[in-house]
């Protein structure tokens, strides 16, 4: 831990750090690759929709002594799909199996009769409709759309539109990957899956917002200095929140991993797999995208702003000058300052209020504090 603590300290001071923004192209590439795989998987294999969405067959048996879990195994073997088995009040069983047409249902009925040792004539087979009607699905989509619009508006107000756009991209990225993995693994999509996806939706945004919050804080007075470009500060703010991101992800993933690997894997609880897999993949993707995708994307967008371009020019010029002189960066340089308080909302026409002498910061480099922010106020 002490090593981790020191690591945290060094990350905090900016002594070490991973160049997230600088190496963004690699990560964009990785993400695009994964996303394409996911989309291809989705297109080729399609989603395996559960009985709640597409309906299926229901078999009702007479009183039987076979246990529910045993008949579930039989039913899944006979059909190759997830089965829902319930014991009825009269001792009979109700077995629901997804994605079966009439022809196959007769065959399964025979197999079930053999397995359950009941007369095939006494198994009543019927087709069931989805319990998740179109209406529920449509309303869920509608809700999703409204939420996305609202959240983009909110982020645009609370932060800025670039962050809203980046958060949205990260969100879509996470959901695509999760859905793609579902298609590739071939697990059945149940209401649990959908709910898992919706959880990810909230979590992914949550995670992104935490990183953005730190980014916003650190870039508050960015134009008042000429030491760092936006991308560099974005990098520092990611590194600064890295410990938090790692901790949060670990804490969120541990219980879900427990459900997935121990509950689903070792103890063999089928339905748990469906939910915890979508959660596990989604949470991991959410944590990944808020660091590797969302923030670099914001930096990319930001760097296109004329103000930030100007800043970059100044920073580079200053560095070049410093390098030429062979002196430290702390040589007295007159900083330019943009006197525009809410420039984040208004990125048009930066008003230059002329050079203004600013306190040189001899100590700040020594401590390596990457915070040109409002701490000095």
């Amino acid at each position, binding site marked *: *831990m002490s090593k981790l603590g*020191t690591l*945290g300290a060094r990350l905090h001071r900016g002594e070490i750090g991973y160049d997230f923004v600088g190496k963004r192209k690699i990560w964009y590439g990785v993400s695009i690759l994964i996303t394409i795989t996911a989309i291809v998987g989705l297109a080729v294999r399609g989603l395996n929709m559960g009985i709640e969405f597409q309906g299926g067959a229901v078999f009702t048996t007479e009183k039987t002594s076979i246990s529910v879990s045993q008949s579930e195994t039989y039913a899944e073997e006979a059909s190759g799909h997830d089965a829902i088995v319930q014991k009825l009040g009269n001792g009979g069983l109700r077995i629901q199996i997804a994605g079966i047409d009439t022809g196959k249902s007769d065959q399964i009925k025979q197999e079930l009769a053999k397995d359950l040792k009941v007369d095939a004539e006494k198994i009543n087979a019927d087709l069931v409709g989805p319990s998740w009607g179109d209406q529920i699905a449509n309303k869920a989509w509608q809700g999703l759309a409204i939420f996305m619009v609202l959240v983009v508006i909110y982020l645009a107000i609370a932060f800025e539109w670039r962050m809203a756009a980046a958060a949205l991209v990260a969100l879509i990225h996470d959901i695509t990957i999760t859905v793609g993995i579902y298609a590739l693994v071939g697990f059945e999509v149940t209401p649990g899956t959908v709910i898992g996806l919706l959880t990810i939706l909230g*979590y992914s*945004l949550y995670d992104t917002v935490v990183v953005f919050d730190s980014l916003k804080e650190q870039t508050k007075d960015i134009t008042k200095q000429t030491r760092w470009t936006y991308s560099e500060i974005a990098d520092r703010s990611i590194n600064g929140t890295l410990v938090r991101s790692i901790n949060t992800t670990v804490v969120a993933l541990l219980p879900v991993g427990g459900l997935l690997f121990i509950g689903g894997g070792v103890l063999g609880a089928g339905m748990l797999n469906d939910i915890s897999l979508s959660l596990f993949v989604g949470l991991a993707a959410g944590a990944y995208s808020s660091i590797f995708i969302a923030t670099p994307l914001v930096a990319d967008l930001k760097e296109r702003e004329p103000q930030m371009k100007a800043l970059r020019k100044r920073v580079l010029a200053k560095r070049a000058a410093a390098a030429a002189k062979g002196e430290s960066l702390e040589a007295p340089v007159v900083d330019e300052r943009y006197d525009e308080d809410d420039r984040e909302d208004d990125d048009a026409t930066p008003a230059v209020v002329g050079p203004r002498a600013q306190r040189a910061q001899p100590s700040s480099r020594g401590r390596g504090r990457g915070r040109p922010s409002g701490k000095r106020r």
Partner: protein
Amino acid sequence: MPVRAGTSVTGRTKRENEKVAAPKKGRQGTQGRPGRTLALILIAIVALTGGMFASGHTTPRLGIDLAGGTSITLQAKNEPGQKNAINPTNMNTAVDIMNRRVNGLGVTEAEVQTQGESNIIVNIPKGTNSEQAREQVGTTAKLYFRPVLTTEVSGGDPAASPSPSASSSASTGSDKDSDKDKATDKATSPSTTPSATSSTQGRAVTDALKADPTPSGSGSPSSSPSASPSASTDPATAKLQAQYTALDCSKKTARAKAGDGVKAGDPTVACGQNSQGQWQKYILGPAEVEGTDVDKASALFDTQGAAGWKVTMDFTSKGAKKFASITGKLAQNQSPQNQFAIVLDGEVVSDPFVSQALTGGSAEISGSFKQQEAEDLANMLSYGALPLTFTEASVTTVTAALGGEQLEAGLIAGAIGLALVIIYLVAYYRGLSLIAIASLLVSAVMTYVIMALLGPTIGFALNLPAVCGAIVAIGITADSFIVFFERIRDEIREGRTLRPAVERGWPRARRTILVSDFVSFLAAAVLFVVTVGKVQGFAFTLGLTTLLDVVVVFFFTKPLMTILARKKFFAEGHSWSGLDPKRLGVEPPLRRTRRVSAPVDTKEA
């Protein structure tokens, strides 16, 4: 966010703190009285827990996938004259409507699906009032407003003819399938006042009740109507007249058959109960306003009249126009033809009369409803009529859709996961993890208690996805602590001592927590408002845990942190406290210079 006076610490105070790590009396008030906040939330928890035990519901109600429940099979009935009514479209519409009715608030976890071509299965979790649910899903709720052409008391005991002063129109039976005990049950409240008032025109209609529209019937089924339908010549009317004459409303079978299969545009015969509990029969004109013209309906308690619970309906703009026109026409007629009947599933539930056109766009059904009945009826009217009529084919209990071992495996796995989280927190945050674990514990207790309490109050049922959602919520809740802790550690790394670090780190952490929780809550709120069924149930759980997260962080974690920051163990940065400056990588010399040069002030976000 308001600036708290005490959060600003000057450099001088800070130096003092450095020397004297123990709390100073003078500063207590400035840190928001953490002890008091802490006591408050603990009292709240104890009160909630006490409430839970007092109510006797010590476990949350479990959904059908975890606890099983009751399965009702409803079979669509073929009605004469509507041959192809049982088709997939109508069945799906019926499923949607039943889903809304039975899932009212969206947290009950009931399931509705079609089976075969003409059956609908409704699964309701254990602990739901299945009787009520059966009525909710099974009632067709076809509502018509029809003008009354003629009416009289039908069948029953001739001796119990209505007194002249009796009002004509109290209505009771809301459900024709329900049993005859209704007659006695409902008649206990003879003072029921029927009314169909517009909201703007007050109680104009009830005044007209002084006139008695009821023909003082002999009670014999064969008695001739006092007011015969106007056009008595054509055969259809004659047939209706004959039907009316033969109708004996005191017989359940006759009641059930009366007006069966009649189209909305045709006149019909119907039965209804008056305030004495006597059955009255009617000839009713074509429907003028239909249930689809009702925008929404709600149950409310009439505090002024003696009507008790009643159901008010707001019409759509089209419906309001129709209603105004029918009431205007009726007001010019003589009794009983100035009455209109509110017909629900073929039974007259209310037959108020009208003295003038009602243009307010709303109407109400009164009768001696119990609260539950009024609410159910309002619920059914709001979600519309089923396109088909259903009969109950079977009712049976079902076991959990997920085997018991699934839940068990889930719980074991969840517990192992939690244990890992705790180990991780202890390994990384050491002493600080105590605060995190205590906060998680408080959060867990509150979630559990509130869920248990919501079971009986709003029918909240917990299903497996919700349990998984709660497990993810561990992550989101723990994140709030982690954000806070990391802030504090950052402040310590910049050379502050613990107490200023806590006070300075808090506003920043607070902003992050609020902003990110707001996003989560927004997701929950939008999904809850827009969606139906299980998604709504999920949104509810998400919103609840998010709110609790904020509550716990603000009223538990922060005060606890403030208090513990005064303890020597933490303030001096014991190597096991998780706040040891050396372990955090603080370099002592820097601390000194920093302390002198920079006054510490709290930046509000």
